């Protein structure tokens, strides 16, 4: 099936599904402007979603209805501005679930109003619309925004593990975080989850430094097994690394295959060695 056929089939399926949800008429037909004289169900749905006096269930249904219609492509264009405006209004709604959905939709679109609301909540927790972890996750959708400095401050501060994990994910593609990734990865006192995320980050932004550090960790028996397993797996998939494996490191991996403490680590060692065996 080519792209055009797939799109047609998908739009037809969406239309069928939304007819079950829509108060009246067809979403896609309305989005195309075919129902000029009839009440516009999509405009009504946007109004319902925005209206805080409506029951939450109705507003949720209206949101699903509109979100489905966004797949109508150009057919949704006439509603795009008013839907964005409604999302910005609902981003400060009293209903937590609707608020979170509105913020998420806007954040994916790198919307500045949503970013300002999230930053305001980080500056003043009394005004926070979502948790700190969620806020940094949403801000991270925009790599031209404020997520990086926010994430750095979280990692220096006294936050729970989940929040720090999100902060590290927000830094995943930031070359300015090379030193931070290397420090966390090398620090055995850091939680395993943070070290593994730092390994991923370092591998992406500075493969050479990652290679050196990861080999040291893999070969170190005092290291956490899960961190060693992750590091070995990451090395295994690092482009160009297989041709650079020296005999010392190969011997260390062979030793792990024979006497590694965990099944996962031994399996990773076997996979690593097998991928380097000439066929």
């Amino acid at each position, binding site marked *: 099936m080519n792209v055009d056929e797939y799109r047609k089939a998908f739009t037809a399926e969406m239309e069928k599904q939304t007819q079950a949800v829509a108060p009246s008429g067809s979403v896609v037909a309305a*989005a*195309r*402007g*075919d129902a000029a004289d009839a009440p516009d169900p999509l405009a009504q749905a946007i109004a319902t979603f925005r209206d805080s006096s409506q029951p939450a269930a109705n507003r949720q249904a209206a949101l699903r209805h509109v979100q489905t219609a966004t797949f109508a492509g*150009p*057919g*949704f*264009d*006439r*509603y*795009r*501005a*008013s839907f*964005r*405006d409604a999302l*910005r*209004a609902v981003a400060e709604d009293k209903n937590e679930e609707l608020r979170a959905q509105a913020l998420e939709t806007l954040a994916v679109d*790198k919307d*500045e*109003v949503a*970013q*300002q*609301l999230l*930053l*305001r909540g*980080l*500056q*003043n927790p009394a005004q926070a619309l979502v948790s*700190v972890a969620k806020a*940094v996750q949403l801000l991270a959708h*925009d*790599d*031209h*925004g*404020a997520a*990086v*400095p*926010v994430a750095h*401050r*979280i990692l220096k*501060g006294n936050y729970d593990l989940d929040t720090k994990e999100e902060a590290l994910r927000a830094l995943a*593609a*930031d*070359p*300015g975080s090379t030193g931070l990734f290397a420090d966390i990865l090398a620090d055995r006192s850091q939680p395993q989850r943070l070290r593994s995320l730092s390994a991923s980050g370092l591998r992406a932004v500075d493969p050479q430094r990652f290679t050196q550090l990861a080999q040291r960790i893999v070969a170190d028996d005092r290291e956490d097994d899960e961190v060693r397993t992750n590091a070995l797996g990451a090395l295994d998939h690092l*482009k160009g690394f297989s041709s650079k494996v020296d005999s010392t490191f190969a011997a260390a991996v062979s030793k792990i295959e024979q006497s590694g403490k965990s099944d996962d680590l031994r399996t990773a060692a076997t996979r690593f060695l097998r991928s380097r065996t000439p066929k």
Partner: protein
Amino acid sequence: MSVAPDRDGTAEVADDITALRRAPARREELVALLPEQSPVYRGLSANAAERIRGFIFASFETVGLPQSALPFVLEELETGISPYTVAAAAKALRGGAEITDKAFTLLVAAAARIASNDDTVQYETIDPADRTVERTSALTEIIRTVAASGPRPRPLWAAIETMAAGGNIAADAMAAIQQARLRLSADPSESCCCAVPPPLALPPKSPASPDAGNLVLEDQSGATFAYREFFYGRASVVTFFYTRCMNPEKCSLTVSKLAALQRRLVATDLACRINVGAFTYDPVYDHPRRLQTYGVDRGFRFDDRNRFLRTAGSFAPIRDKFDLGVGFGTTTVNWHSVELLILDAKGTSVREFRRVRWDEAEVVAAVKAAMTPVAATA
């Protein structure tokens, strides 16, 4: 401790802009804030930089649009994808003495581009979340400028008719289109460009070009060399991009067009006599593999004379040498212009295509002209 960054300073800049809106005689001070490398954008997110630029553009509707601001406005209409800044650029044109056919064509194309990504906008205040002021849609603002352009031949605004016929236009924009149809179709004698032409202002003077001969560069293959080793002894065409650019009308298109230019040069005898290069604005992120992939994906062919480049350290020496229109936030570029330069055999710019989507044939002609004195002295 708050984890949010300190205030970004946009409120203070907005106060200055608002004050300038009340003083048309000082409008050149607004123009001085437009170059991307201006300190007002330093350290800002791309969204914050965009907001300041849009707020400035919209101010020209009130204070009048000086000639010195026109290249910025036209560039935004041609390459912008943000409803806020593109609509602001359209508003700026209303402050000018007249809207040329070239500007009109860009306006119509901008309307077609923004129609699929419309948003609500307001320019009374700089706060995007301000709900106390009336909002309109970006498309409506663009169409209002189209209407204000005066009568035009129908083929120039056929895209607007097509848009209206498609029926996917919100009610306020459709009302603006109806108004536009009447005014665009009117007898030319009924139209009146009443605005007094603004005084012509000279563009800001470029700073001196610092010597970059010893600057260390790295190419897409990981090879390192000094600026002089690549750029001295042969003319060059260079442009600028970064792989994280969010605007497909800028970097992605620039590199695709550079590949097209490369193919045109191969069809002449110039290809073996010049360099074709592209510098990344973002050398820390754009490591060699990224440069290579970005070029190959867009049809660029690499060899010793055709390279993508990054500075080994800061990009500032290249930005300063060529007075490039680029600003930086906390992590990467927050706004940039579209620029292509032709360098002589000493790596100095001799012809510049700035703030326009350059035409490949025109660039080839300019390269030929630039090569002539080099050939004469060889």
